[in-house]
């Protein structure tokens, strides 16, 4: 086996910002003062914040060292299931950094911001085409924000019809943001269990769908990486009782150009630009969660909408049924630029190819590791597959131990302990941007770790050993929170 990527490096220690610095230092070139100082009311003046004074080199060394303690997609494979950690093309950063975009005030008159409005208008069109939906808003700033927007639209739609429906059906495999978004909107989530094949059955939904249920919030493909095969029939059951079908589009990377959500019964869905559309994750954000809707839900979208009029773009507010505003301005425009650039660079054929290769990579891993790790659903998967730690239990090795040991081999661990329906879940989503060589290395690493589990389990229990720190005391961190210095 080739040498694994896992190795130690020269990781320098670096104190906290306020443990450095000297009063009077500065890392900011203060602009020239060309006006006289003014008197200030003593009773309004504060003391100013207790920030350290640092020189530019203090700041540069600080953050350079900190960055070296981090692992990113640019470092190595990051197979986090449901996160779609695909490679972020650098040209996207360049486009988002153009001064005409970075320096743009959101309240500029439309005639002075045609470039931005055109990007928004065209991006909405592209997302409509990819999802098969009728209209899109780019205003939500993250996936969960899009889910909330969707719930608010469902609420508004029923309210307009004069009905107050209180429940939303949510599968047991749902991402935590789903029931949380349902609750934020004042609905009660009603759980539905997936069947032994890991998907929703028509009967299970029919049993709980009633006139008091506003709709269903499902994920397709679901969080087990499986296509919800009964979706058309399920959508019909919900529609027949006047409900609305919401789809969490986080897993869109499996089906671009292969399935059009609008054609299979979905009324409303959100996309995650920081997943499917390659915008970088930034250590936790920012993202962007556009919401796409079928025609009958268009009137409820947030305002303003970008509209084309006489060959130019304007912002229109006159939508009396709109839910209002979900962000102060237009959403994460700087993130939208990156997704727009990605779509323009890929083109229709490559977007479809990306989905096909993502599914290929996931199935390949599933096939190659199913002897090593327990595979709860041995059927074709989509862009991600779920294993468990059942085979390793006999050695008293848990999913957590294997995940931590993977770091020593130079990989970010997969998603662990989600979805909840699989105890000790290990959810692997390689994405299409990982090469066969990298994936083969990942497979070799996992096999080696499974071997270590039997021969030398302490290597796993004590892992990781190659990172900046060893395992951390999360219990004390929660019991005695220290959230600021």
């Amino acid at each position, binding site marked *: 086996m080739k040498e694994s990527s896992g190795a130690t490096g020269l990781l320098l220690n670096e104190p906290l910002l306020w443990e450095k610095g000297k009063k009077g230092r500065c890392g900011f070139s203060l602009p020239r003062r060309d006006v006289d100082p003014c008197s200030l009311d003593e009773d309004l003046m504060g003391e100013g914040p207790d920030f350290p004074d640092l020189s530019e080199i203090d700041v540069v060394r600080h953050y350079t060292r900190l960055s070296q303690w981090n692992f*990113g997609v640019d470092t190595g494979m990051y197979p986090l299931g449901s996160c779609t950690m695909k490679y972020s093309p650098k040209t996207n950063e360049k486009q988002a950094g153009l001064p005409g975009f970075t320096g743009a*005030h959101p309240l500029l008159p439309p005639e002075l911001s045609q470039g931005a409005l055109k990007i928004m208008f065209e991006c909405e069109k592209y997302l409509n085409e990819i999802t098969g939906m009728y209209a899109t808003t780019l205003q939500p700033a993250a996936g969960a924000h899009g889910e909330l927007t969707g719930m608010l639209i469902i609420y508004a739609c029923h309210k307009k019809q004069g009905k107050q429906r209180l429940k939303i059906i949510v599968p047991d495999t749902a991402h935590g943001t789903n029931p949380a978004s349902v609750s934020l909107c004042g609905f009660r989530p009603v759980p539905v269990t997936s069947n032994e094949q890991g998907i929703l059955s028509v009967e299970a939904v029919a049993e709980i769908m009633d006139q008091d249920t506003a709709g269903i919030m499902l994920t397709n493909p679901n969080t087990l990486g499986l296509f919800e095969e009964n979706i058309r029939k399920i959508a019909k059951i919900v529609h027949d009782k006047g409900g609305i079908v919401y789809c969490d589009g986080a897993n869109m990377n499996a089906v671009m150009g292969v399935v059009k959500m609008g054609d299979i019964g979905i009324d409303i869905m959100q996309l995650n630009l920081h997943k499917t559309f390659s915008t970088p994750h930034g250590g936790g954000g920012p993202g962007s969660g556009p919401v796409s809707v079928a025609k009958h839900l268009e009137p409820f979208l947030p305002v303003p909408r970008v509209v084309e009029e006489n060959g130019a773009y304007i912002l229109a507010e006159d939508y009396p049924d709109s839910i209002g505003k979900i*962000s102060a301005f237009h959403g994460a425009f700087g993130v939208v630029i990156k997704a727009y650039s990605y779509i323009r660079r890929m083109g229709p054929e490559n977007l479809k190819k990306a989905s096909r290769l993502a599914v290929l990579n996931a199935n390949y891993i599933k096939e190659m590791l199913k002897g090593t790790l327990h595979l709860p659903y041995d059927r074709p998967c989509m862009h991600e597959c779920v294993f468990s730690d059942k085979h390793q239990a006999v050695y008293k090795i848990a999913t957590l131990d294997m995940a931590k040991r993977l770091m020593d081999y130079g990989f970010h661990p997969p998603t662990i302990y989600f979805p909840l329906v699989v105890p000790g879940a290990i959810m692997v989503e390689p994405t299409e941007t990982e090469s066969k060589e990298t994936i083969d290395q990942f497979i070799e690493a996992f096999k080696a770790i499974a071997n270590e589990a039997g021969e030398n389990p302490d290597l796993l229990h004590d892992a990781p050993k190659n990172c900046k720190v060893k395992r951390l005391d999360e219990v004390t961190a929660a019991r005695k929170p220290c959230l600021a210095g």
Partner: protein
Amino acid sequence: MIYLPHTHEDIISMLRVLGVDNLDDLFSTVPEDCRFNGDLHLPDALTEWELNDHMSALSDTMAVSPEYKMFMGAGSYEHFIPASVSYLLSRSEFVTSYTPYQPEMSQGTLQAIYEYQTLAARLLGMEVATASHYDGATALAEALLMAVRITKRKKVAISSLIHPLYRRVVQTYFEPTGTEVVVLPYLDTGITDAAGLDEMDDLAAVAIQSPNFFGCIENLRLFAQKAHDKKSLFVASFTEALAYGLFKSPGSQGADIAGGEGQSLGIPRSFGGPALGILASSKKHMRSLPGRLVGKTKDLDGKTGFVLTLATREQHIRREKATSNICTNNSLCALAAAMYMASLGGTGIRKLARLNHDKAEYLKKELKKAGFGISFDSRTFNEFVVEFPSGFEASHRHLLEKKIIAGLCLAPYYPELSNHYLLCVTETRSKEDMDTLVREVKS
């Protein structure tokens, strides 16, 4: 395609392992009636070079500095961003990492966000700050929802001088919750009228923005007292975080929760987003905070390290009982803010804030000399409202042609204030810029 590394041979050999002939066979679980068999109608792929040309052309249509002189703030502020900050922010270990769920290989993000939490809390005079929210509007909405959860009361009072777009976001968030939102009127001095509060016994929170939308500094201590007299929480909001380099912090004036916008702290305007929602509270309400929190701890060897903590508040643990649904936040923007605050320093931020204030005062003075009325008497930071003569819209448009953006017309937001314009002066406007503006509006 350069982002798709698989060669034809790679694909063949992988398909062989799977025992299928082609990629279509991998979609066997997608029922026939769910398949889309056509082509996506999207423009053909551009080369990187064609994309550069396309985007440059679009960028060139935008009215930005230095070509245009911007005197407009209203929630989005032009400030200088040091080259060092942009440079450090582009390090791909920060940019391409994800949420630090595996702390051992994410200590860079975790320590950086712990530092951001600390600096944000110190800026606002609060005890705990979260790891970020989407923007000032959603941070305010979350602050109010938090107050409702804590007090279990069903009414909040918000000032009419909170940013009009923030108030619309709050209304959208509150629509299905059954919580009543009462709007407090303003006085002719340009600050919020506290009088009505004496009659309101059942408020979960009172929310005031300072500097407010008119740029005026509010009496936060007064509102804190009034709120606390009725056992309500006091929520302080803001759109211009730099103001607290100079003015008394919300925490020092009795705020229980602070929720506002951090874009001024090293984040480019980018047509409104991504932005930075800053949310902070007293330690007392820590466990009701929505969003991620980074905590300090030790590893197995006793070395200091950082982890996400108090996760039982969050959606991935508590699901429908979580304090919020937020998952992805604005982490990289928080990092930018931390780098900016670290670069500016305690000494620097006071100087910069002072410069903003003094420049705005200069413009005020010159406009007064030129015969224009300053609408409100109260002290301001870097924004203020001017009354221009009736019919000024034509002049405003004329100034646009001269590449001067002379503020935001308030009429669409406050119909009683037609001909009043909200002007902003930051450190990016020179004395010449201001003299030119005054000269042009006079003529």
